């Protein structure tokens, strides 16, 4: 289950985002408890799935399945012991079988409590990544406002309200099946709500039963947060990076690759010290796809998995499929060459992408999914002019130029109006 920036509950962290569903006052922490939403309000959605329907909000996962990319659907099923390769028998023997049977006989209702949360903490962020949105970056929000691209910055997060935060932690404490909390920013390390929730969970004595997941942007370090995290059962650490080159500075503006690399190494050493699970988190776009292999290289050398949540969908002009055929062919060749130079003995699908014993298999699997996407996704190069218009706006404000970082795309971008 998810609580988004507005305090609205959502049934799944992988749910396709739709602006009209982002704020729902009825399904909000201000108006109902997480338990009520989970057990009762979600019944209708749960029943749809039990009836074999394919809800539209699941379409991102179906898209990933189609291109051989491990989807949220597969990951969440795996936590219930259900694997696509042995679907019926693993369903029949799932540890959730009795709960599923109960829901099936009771219009989707459940007596379970939430085990697995995604907690959106708001948009506090010191970065303004070019593919990000005001809802996820306060810095980008301020820039968009200045450039007239939005009328107002997003409202403050639910977790800025100490009363709501206290209420939420109290509900977590009462949830006897709680296992995993995944935090999303902004930049979690500088978000006050993140530290506050960690402290409260430690103080109420349940930290040792909980695994914490979060992602950091490699621009900040907080010793106090590391000390807090070390008191939990485990940590799933996500580290955001797009390329190991200066192009990362442009895309994840205003980061600097030298500092980013130093912090990356520091996080990996820390994770090794505490036995945390690490993943490099990438958001490949049409700007970075051709250098994605540099991240794969680093990850391969350090035996770390690489993962993106999905194929980027918004903003539309950042999609990989915006690359015209010539650039797509070059990008494909680079990726294909990288794949050809790296082999493993396993060919089965890695669904638990955090398994450190399968990092190489997982990296190759991820690379293959992007190769498949480059081969099969429809041509959306007609969005190139939108991309260039957007980049020009940002570049003029930042005193920057995409051409400094991507000189090989100069002719392309010039032809599209740069």
């Amino acid at each position, binding site marked *: 289950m998810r609580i988004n920036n507005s305090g609205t509950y959502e049934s799944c962290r992988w749910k396709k985002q739709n602006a009209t569903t982002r704020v729902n006052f009825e399904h909000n922490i201000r108006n109902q408890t997480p338990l009520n939403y989970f057990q009762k309000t979600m019944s209708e959605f749960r029943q749809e*799935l*039990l009836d074999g329907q394919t809800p539209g909000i699941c379409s991102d996962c179906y898209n990933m399945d189609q291109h051989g990319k491990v989807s949220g659907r597969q990951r969440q099923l*795996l936590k219930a012991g259900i*694997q696509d390769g042995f*679907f019926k*028998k693993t369903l029949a023997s799932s*540890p959730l079988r009795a709960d599923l049977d109960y829901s*099936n006989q009771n219009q989707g209702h459940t007596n379970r409590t939430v085990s697995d949360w995604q907690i959106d903490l708001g948009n506090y962020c010191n970065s303004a990544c070019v593919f990000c949105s005001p809802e996820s970056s306060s810095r980008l929000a301020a820039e968009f406002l200045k450039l007239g691209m939005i009328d107002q910055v997003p409202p403050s997060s639910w977790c800025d309200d100490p009363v709501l935060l206290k209420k939420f932690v109290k509900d977590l404490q009462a949830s006897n*099946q709680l296992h995993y909390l995944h935090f999303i920013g902004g930049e979690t390390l500088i978000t006050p709500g993140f530290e506050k929730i960690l402290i409260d969970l430690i103080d109420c004595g349940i930290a040792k039963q909980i695994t914490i997941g979060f992602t950091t942007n490699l621009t900040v370090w907080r010793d106090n947060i590391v000390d807090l995290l070390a008191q939990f059962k485990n940590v799933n650490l996500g580290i955001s990076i797009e390329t190991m080159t200066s192009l990362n500075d442009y895309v994840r503006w205003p980061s600097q690759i030298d500092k980013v690399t130093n912090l990356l190494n520091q996080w990996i050493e820390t994770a090794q010290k505490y036995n945390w699970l690490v993943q490099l988190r990438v958001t490949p776009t049409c700007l970075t796809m051709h250098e994605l292999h540099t991240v794969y290289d680093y990850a391969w050398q350090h035996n770390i998995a690489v993962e993106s949540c999905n194929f980027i969908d918004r903003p539309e002009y950042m999609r990989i499929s915006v690359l015209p055929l010539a650039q797509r062919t070059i990008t494909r060749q680079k990726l294909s060459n990288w794949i050809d130079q790296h082999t493993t003995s396993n060919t089965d699908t890695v669904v638990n992408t955090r398994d450190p014993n399968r990092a190489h298999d997982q990296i190759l699997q991820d690379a293959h999914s992007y190769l498949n996407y480059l081969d099969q996704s429809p041509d959306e190069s007609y969005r190139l002019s939108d991309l260039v218009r957007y980049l020009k706006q940002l570049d003029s404000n930042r005193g920057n130029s995409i051409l400094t970082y991507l000189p090989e795309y100069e002719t392309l971008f010039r032809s599209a109006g740069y």
Partner: protein
Amino acid sequence: MKRYSDLLDIDTRLNLRLELEPIGNPDICISVDNYQQDYILSDNKIIDYRLDLLKPFSVVIELRNKQYNLNNETAVIVKLSIDDINIIPKYDYLAEYDNDHDYHKPTSHLGFNGKWTLTFDCPFYHWLHLHSGQGWLFG
């Protein structure tokens, strides 16, 4: 997509296949769940079992009456699959080997008098989930 109830309309038994390759003529006793059989093997033998999907069980293979001074090479090599999933030799490190030579390294080559036991102490697919690195399970 199928309805939940349709997805559960299946034969909920496991297909366990035990493949035994003898070296010499090993005298063995096999116990799988409630089945027990004795053999003096001379040729490769394949034995199929149908087991309950949800019930824990063990596979026990005992080599006996081997006379080390007469037939030192005598042994049986075990392969085990369940629903066509390779279990032995892949997971041989999970088996216990209690034998008269105090040999405890992971193996599927049973050359000493004693019992080799692989225990599935929970429903098979939970066991597989745990031992194949699939991460945590909702409890």
